[in-house]
């Protein structure tokens, strides 16, 4: 039987975030003896949060050096936890912190790593991972012979574990803080009222290049486009995505939406966010863009072209209309 280690890092408040709890659900479903490995400045709150999960052991690497995400310290902590646990399968949430560090840990352990897993299941007594290839264009189920096998699970694929809090007996694992030339100096975030990326939003609003093109009166209305889009994002608390063509304009000095950056880009060379609903505007819905919608459940689009990509089975509803006009009315209704 496989033995399982769940690796989780704490958040700044010392607790575990949703992706770690989702991973716990997946790790428990594998059925083998489970060890929890925690990393953070302090882990008491995190251990208490999942004390009732049924894990056989709780291990932890703690200290201020392990508070911040940093490759050298994160790999040292994770490696020590993996060696102490000796588990054959290591499951971890695909956070930016673990995605940066755990492939290197897999190498140090002589194991293998698979990332962006969307499902983890026991098949014929062996774990099998489902993940997408070619930027969400094809899905494969794979397994590996080498151990330990480190698996990073994408967020939003399973329900987060919930259960009684309690008191867990946590075994400290000593790690010498490795020498590093890297100092984490902070986080740069947009001001709260300029926040356009909201991973937990119910709706993804995607703007295409059409917003910055000449409209029916022969003029470009980029300023009004900005007002309409930002007004909608604030009123609906939606997350903003952009097509590659629109985002690229920002780097080419053309009429642009000033708040749109490459971080907003959705699709083949952008992100693949998970939202229950998506509304596309002024975007043609061609395949390289729509692969970014793979995990958006309900899809609607507004486009002037009735033969655009969205009409060919990519959206549930296509409104053939002027997005400027529709969004003016939408914003008015949301303000009412």
């Amino acid at each position, binding site marked *: 039987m496989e033995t399982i280690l769940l690796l989780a890092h704490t958040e700044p408040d010392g607790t575990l975030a949703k992706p770690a709890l989702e991973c716990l659900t997946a790790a428990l479903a594998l059925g083998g003896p489970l060890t929890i490995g925690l990393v953070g400045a302090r882990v008491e709150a995190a251990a208490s949060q999942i004390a009732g999960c049924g894990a056989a052991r709780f291990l932890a690497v703690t200290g201020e050096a392990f508070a911040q995400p940093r490759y050298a310290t994160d790999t040292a902590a994770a490696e020590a936890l993996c060696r102490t646990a000796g588990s054959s399968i290591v499951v971890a949430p695909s956070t930016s912190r673990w995605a940066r560090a755990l492939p290197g840990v897999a190498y140090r352990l002589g194991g293998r790593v698979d990332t962006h897993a969307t499902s983890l299941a026991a098949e014929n007594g062996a774990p099998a991972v489902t993940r997408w290839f070619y930027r969400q264009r094809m899905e494969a189920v794979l397994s590996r012979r080498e151990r330990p096998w480190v698996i990073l699970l994408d967020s939003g694929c399973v329900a987060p574990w919930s259960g009684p809090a309690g008191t867990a007996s946590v075994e400290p694992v000593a790690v010498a803080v490795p020498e590093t030339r890297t100092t984490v100096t902070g986080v740069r975030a947009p001001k709260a009222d300029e926040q356009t990326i909201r991973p937990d939003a119910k709706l993804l609003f995607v703007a295409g290049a059409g917003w910055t093109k000449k409209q029916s009166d022969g003029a470009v209305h980029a300023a009004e486009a900005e007002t309409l889009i930002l007004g909608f994002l604030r009123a609906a608390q939606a997350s903003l995505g952009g097509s590659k063509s629109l985002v690229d304009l920002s780097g080419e000095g053309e009429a642009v939406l000033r708040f749109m950056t490459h971080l907003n880009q959705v699709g083949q060379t952008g992100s693949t966010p998970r939202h229950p609903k998506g509304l596309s505007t002024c975007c043609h819905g061609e395949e390289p863009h729509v692969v970014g919608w793979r995990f958006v459940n*309900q899809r609607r689009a507004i486009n002037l072209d009735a033969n655009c990509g969205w009409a060919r089975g990519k959206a549930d509803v296509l409104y053939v209309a002027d997005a400027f006009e529709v969004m003016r009315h*939408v914003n008015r209704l949301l303000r009412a």
Partner: protein
Amino acid sequence: MSTPFQIAVCGSIVPDPLQTLEPVVGPSGPSLKNEMMLPAVLDPWAGHALFEAAHLARSTPGSKVWLVSLGPKAKLQQVMMTVAQKVPFELVALDGPASGFTDSFETAAALAAAIAAIPGLDRSRLLVFGGWESASRGAGSTLQMVGERLGIAEQFQGVDRVTVGEDGGLEILERIEGGRHQVSVCAAPPAVLGWATGDLPEPRNNPQIGMANMRAIMPALQRAKATPIPNTGLSFASVSLPKQQRETRIVKDMPAEEIAREIVAWMAEE
């Protein structure tokens, strides 16, 4: 004055994003139907890494850029005809698969060995660049293992900007959750940087750069060693295209106000 960098950019080729891709499963595992016939491009995020490397090298005199690429030699040659016109670099070619189904562990071994074998490489000035994920495997795990094999524990992923300080330190912006960046300072090379999009536009084609690059690229392609990636211990139970095709309701001639009402009602549905 800044000390020059030696920048090895890991990057391969992927099918042109506009192509229709279909998986086929053969005795050696999955691949793409007509894979060798599909037009290819430089992997987009690796391309950004290459352009950022060239920009950094240009602003730090004495620096040098290598593109270390594992892919079928014939396809690499086709893609290099275009890429070579963008920025100056020297190619280190490995003749092997560029498939998304190849294992990152073995790919990393091949790339690290190729970097380590670059004649005269000063590893104390080495920056290993690449895309943070490929558009084929999309694992985001190869560069970390390249770094480990080269003994580099200063690593950054999802990089959008690097600024060289007056003391030679590198201020690095990495993407983290929620549209934010983590800011770190790496005091000095060596380091591994997996690039996201960066903030440079794609350089225009420059035939003079192309001609200068191609003089060294063709011999590099001829020297390319056969580099099989056997995918040891990795097995695929299935590879399939998503089946979901939606029954799209196309709404024409509906007044904008009515469409707006329908959208707002839909947004409110649980």
